[in-house]
């Protein structure tokens, strides 16, 4: 058997199966306990996130030798590490990395304030041996390779607009990375939230659902610009049980719930960053334990940033496009009347009593409906919306296209008598089945 390297046993360091540490007191009495996290630092060092309680710490100060037993989270294979305690770090890059990993798993279980890391304990690895087993080897699917990443990046390069970028990214996650479901949320700086604009694999799309920055895995990934990953099945399951049930109708809450899949055991949230700014967060989940290892995390990191850049570029191109005025013919609204209620305090919009959207997208919708009602205009361009002063939308400079995309998709899903059709790069048509009666309710 070949001698395993730390890199080759990477799946042991994902925190799925608890590791074990044994130490020895000066009188020869051993101490054996479970550990929450072992982190691979470099080819010859590991670090433990455990703030050493009592006996293990005292033993290590007297005798720095320890034995670690780590378990591959996908196959159950066990490895024994002979290690030497080198010291503890309370600050610096390694400390930050371990603290974030710990925060990632505790954020999801609502323990972010409880599990505070005091120190990271660093060990030099002297020897790695596989624990013999006669059980049939559990085979795990191959990790994602660079070829698969290149394939998705090539398709992202060909995506001509924001819609296509989102579709390619989500399909890449489900097909090439093996996710069961995935969702993209885009950053809304004016409200400090991430808003879902596209998803695949969920029982309902969740388009329009929001995750506040800093809350949960998605919000934490957005706020810190770092990846958050959870591979601990029991924690996720308990969280799922707590989150299930008790959903109020959208009409009362004016919020759309994030979708979920039952029995998810692996989840990952990756920030989408371009030109030094947060564009959004992509979140993926799976029912397979440890579905997102180091390779998938790296792959997703590349794809998320590539998609972020493509979205930014789509935004710029859509903003520059000048519509052809001859292609547009006004048509006064006709047919039945439908009610549009706009609440100015949060820009939430209801059509025929059904909640549609709020925030910037809500304001946009009312603006377009008013123009259509008053002038019969149907065709609009991103460019003119950017210049429209009455929209009071300075923040639209960077994300008008994605706001319109959110609005268009939400309208398609709710199927009220209003739709937006994309007619070209940076241009779209408002299609109304009837005459809008718009009423604004001031707070």
């Amino acid at each position, binding site marked *: 058997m070949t001698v395993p390297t730390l890199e080759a046993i990477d799946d042991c360091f994902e925190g799925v*199966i608890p590791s*074990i*540490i*044994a*130490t*020895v007191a000066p009188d*020869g*009495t*051993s*101490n*054996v*306990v*479970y550990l929450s996290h072992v982190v691979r630092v470099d080819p010859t060092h590991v670090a433990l996130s455990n703030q050493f*309680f*009592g*006996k293990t710490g005292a033993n290590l100060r007297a*005798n720095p*030798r*320890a*034995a*670690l*037993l780590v*378990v591959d989270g996908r*196959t*159950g*294979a*066990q490895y*024994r590490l*002979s290690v030497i305690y080198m010291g503890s770090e309370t600050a610096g890059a390694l400390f930050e990395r371990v603290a974030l990993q710990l925060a990632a798993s505790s954020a999801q279980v609502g323990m972010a304030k409880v599990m505070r890391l005091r120190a990271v304990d660093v060990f030099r690895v002297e020897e790695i041996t596989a*624990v*013999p*087993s*006669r*059980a*049939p080897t*559990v085979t795990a699917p191959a990790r994602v390779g660079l070829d698969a990443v290149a394939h998705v990046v090539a398709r992202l390069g060909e995506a001509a607009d924001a819609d296509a970028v989102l579709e390619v990214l989500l399909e890449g996650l489900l097909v090439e990375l093996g996710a069961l479901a995935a969702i993209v949320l885009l950053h809304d700086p004016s409200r400090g939230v991430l808003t879902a604009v596209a998803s695949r694999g969920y029982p309902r799309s969740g388009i329009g659902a929001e995750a506040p920055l800093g809350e949960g895995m998605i919000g934490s990934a957005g706020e810190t610009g770092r990846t958050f990953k959870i591979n601990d*099945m*029991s924690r996720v*399951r308990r969280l799922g049980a707590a989150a299930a049930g008790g959903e109020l109708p959208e009409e009362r809450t004016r919020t759309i719930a994030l979708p979920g899949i039952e029995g998810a*055991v692996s989840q990952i949230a990756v920030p989408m960053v371009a030109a030094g700014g947060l564009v959004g967060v992509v979140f993926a989940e799976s029912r397979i*334990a440890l579905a997102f290892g180091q390779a998938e995390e790296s792959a997703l990191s590349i794809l998320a940033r590539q998609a972020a850049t493509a979205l930014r570029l789509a935004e710029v191109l859509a903003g520059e496009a000048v519509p052809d005025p001859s292609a547009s013919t006004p048509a006064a609204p006709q047919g039945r009347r439908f009610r549009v209620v706009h609440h100015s305090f949060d820009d939430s919009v209801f059509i025929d009593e059904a909640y549609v959207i709020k925030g910037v997208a809500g304001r946009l919708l009312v603006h377009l409906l008013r123009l259509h009602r008053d002038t019969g205009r149907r065709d609009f361009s991103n460019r003119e919306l950017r210049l429209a002063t009455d929209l009071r939308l300075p923040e639209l400079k960077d994300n008008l296209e994605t706001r319109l995309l959110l609005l268009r998709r939400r309208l398609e899903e709710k199927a009220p008598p209003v739709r937006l059709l994309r007619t070209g790069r940076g241009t779209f048509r408002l299609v109304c089945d009837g005459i809008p009666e718009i009423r604004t309710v001031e707070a």
Partner: protein
Amino acid sequence: MLIEGDLARFLSEPVTIILGTADAGGRPEIGRGLAGAVVVEDTVEMVLSRTQWPATAANVVGTRRLSATFTRPADYVSYQLKGSASVRLAEAEDRDRAERYIASMRATFAGLGLAPGFVDAWLQTEDPVVLRLAVEAVFVQTPGLRAGAALT
């Protein structure tokens, strides 16, 4: 130290057993035990596969010391038992007990969403011996503020 009541019952539940030993040079070793049982009021026995954990068996023979942490997988309730220990060869009834224990652990972990192949990789019965631990001290090992506190 007397092992009775709730603790005695806990030790014979489907709980994981991890073993700590050291050689004469103070080098620590880890193993996994099977089928804990209180056999006399202060003595706990468990089965060990010598094929899978040869150093653990050799250390107990060499130093006569053993530490064993018993943990309930569902809630991490844990106790560590420390004391002097000896090794004896497994009898037919020990082997049966080990097989029943593995079946119960397989069911327990399946209930927590773990594939059966994992348990089979960890818990094996080849070349079984019995470790006999005369308990001198018991420590609460459940994660939390009381972790490491001695039971008196």
